[in-house]
């Protein structure tokens, strides 16, 4: 863990075709020095393929991969000096924890003394010192995961690549290790590229998220930016939950517009600099369930909607309600439970309200 600056990686129009099938299609992406980037997407979206192309196990059919500006596309994996944590960890079953962690140093021909010092440091980093002489099968899933991390970090890799590192763990341990991994990232200061299909994991750990679908990069950016301003229906739906409201654009002006759907008109405010859609075009809005409030009698909001509770679920932190409205069909709303003594019952009439800034126009996905 000597130089702590990390390296920058760029993907330029990288494609991978298997026959006529495009597993990855023209993906361009910049990963900055020391950044924690997550590739997020549903199963089969090409996340592993991209990671394997970066690692050198998959040769792209087109495009190039650059490390700090130098083309590394033709380099074999063992020459890239990237640490990698595989899905399922891929620990060597015939080696103890120490031998596993020492493996990358051994094949690099380090002397025994150097090796020992580095292995000890790496094991301390992941708090596994006392398990040094166990075999992988004698460790729990979380401990194995940490061995895999130590093994991937011990040789000062240029990049750390993680393929669903936490997917085999139970929910509680996963949350714990998410924090640990993030802390580790801060401590070692290296560039991390993480793959997951768990949106919570992506949101909580990453500096930046790249969202993939059908081998294409759909949108990338900071977690907050992606969550707040999804650009397509797919992103809004995949990263968290969303209501989708469609209608015709009216009253278009800088900073906002109104969406007309039957008798109702919804007010939409846009952030500075975002161009409003033209009058008369169709538009789709994404509205997060937690941005909808239940309005008490007499209180108003930018948008108000009457409806009845169809069903509800108690989540501990709050209620998740499905509400049938005459104007816009079924709407999902999440309410914090502690704020009011709200007791939902089926058929209960409610007034929903939300801010003009809450709804975000999104594009329909290309077919």
């Amino acid at each position, binding site marked *: 863990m000597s130089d702590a600056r990390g390296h920058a990686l760029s993907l330029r129009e990288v494609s991978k075709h298997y026959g006529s099938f495009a597993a990855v299609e023209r993906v361009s992406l910049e990963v900055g020095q020391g950044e924690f980037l997550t590739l997020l997407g549903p199963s089969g979206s090409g996340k592993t393929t991209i990671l394997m192309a970066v*690692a*050198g*196990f998959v040769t792209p059919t087109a495009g190039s991969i650059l490390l700090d500006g130098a083309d590394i596309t033709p380099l*074999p*994996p*063992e020459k890239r*000096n*990237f*640490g*990698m944590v*595989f*899905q*399922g960890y*891929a620990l*060597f*079953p*015939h080696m103890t924890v120490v031998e596993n962690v020492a*493996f*990358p140093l*051994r*094949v*690099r021909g380090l002397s025994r003394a150097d090796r020992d010092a580095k292995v000890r440091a790496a094991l301390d980093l992941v708090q596994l010192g006392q398990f040094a002489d166990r075999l992988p099968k004698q460790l729990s899933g979380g401990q194995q995961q940490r061995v895999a991390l130590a*093994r*991937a970090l011990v*040789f000062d890799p240029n990049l750390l690549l993680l393929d669903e590192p936490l997917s085999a763990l139970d929910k509680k341990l996963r949350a714990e290790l998410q924090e640990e991994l993030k802390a580790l990232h801060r401590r070692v200061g290296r560039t991390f590229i993480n793959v997951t299909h768990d949106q919570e994991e992506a949101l909580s750990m990453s500096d930046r998220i790249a969202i993939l679908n059908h081998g294409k990069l759909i949108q990338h950016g900071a977690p907050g930016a992606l969550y707040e301003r999804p650009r397509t229906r797919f992103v809004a739906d995949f990263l968290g939950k969303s209501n989708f409201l469609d209608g015709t654009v009216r009253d278009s002006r800088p900073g906002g517009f109104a969406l007309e759907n039957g008798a109702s008109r919804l007010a939409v405010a846009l952030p500075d600099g975002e161009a409003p859609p033209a009058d008369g075009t169709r538009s789709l809005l994404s509205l997060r369930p937690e941005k909808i409030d239940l309005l008490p009698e007499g209180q108003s909001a930018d948008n108000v909607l009457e409806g009845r509770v169809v069903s509800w679920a108690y989540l501990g932190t709050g209620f998740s309600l499905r509400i049938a409205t005459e104007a816009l069909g079924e709407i999902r709303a999440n309410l914090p439970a502690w704020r009011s003594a709200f007791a939902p019952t089926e058929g209960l009439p409610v007034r929903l309200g939300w801010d003009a800034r809450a709804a975000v126009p999104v594009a329909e996905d290309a077919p």
Partner: protein
Amino acid sequence: MTGTGRAGVGWWLLILPAFALLLAFYIAPIVQVLAISVTDPEPGLGNYERIFTSGAVQRVILTTLRICAITTVLALLLGYAIAYAITLASPRARGWWVLAVLVPLWISVLVRAFAWVTLLRRQGLVNNTLMNAGMISEPLPLVWNEFGIIVGMVHYMVPFAVLPMLASMREIDPRLLAAARGLGATRFEVFRRVFLPLSMPGIIAAGVLVFIFSLGFYITPAILGGGKTLMVAEWISLQILDLIRWGLGTMMATMLVVAILVTLAVFSRVVDLRRIFGAGG
């Protein structure tokens, strides 16, 4: 306890016929062989004494051990290369490979031994080709000696070496090999530090199997040895059928069984044989 006890009795009843058969046709003859070896021509351990006193007996034992050891090593080397190639082959090619390994098993051992004789004898294909090419002036002694026996035995044993090694290689997770390369190992290092150690159970199983099999080999050494190089099985048959020395023949037969049991016992210390030969999970 009572439940399992009753079920246990049931199981025993089920295997009783098989057990009786085994006793009548397998264990009883072996016991009889043992009995003859300590009673013929006179009661006592005189036959066993010959192991330490008779040069002929010692020569047979040493020849057998040497041929078996060389056969085992060669069959393992060849078999490992074949099993490795099969493991790395594409699924389609793999089927053809396995077929090619198994086909010889379906051809009579007698036919194969005579095929080697025609290839290796003085006017055989190999000697003729080499002479015509001017590479040798005299035919090489390729058969009716240890060399011929080893060629025939290795040929026979390779499939038995391939199968256990193939089984253990197919159990190796390919991601481990990828992981090793990702961690900086060259292809050779991946083989040496990951693949080879993980295929070791298969190597040991194949080695034990081939060695034990070779110890009692009869037809191939008899035909390719031409009566000049004797291994124990042929020697035993010679003692009993031609020289009517039952005591000596059964003594050697007993030693053969003991050698096999000792080999198994030693390796069951080193490795879990049940796992290697595919029992249990």
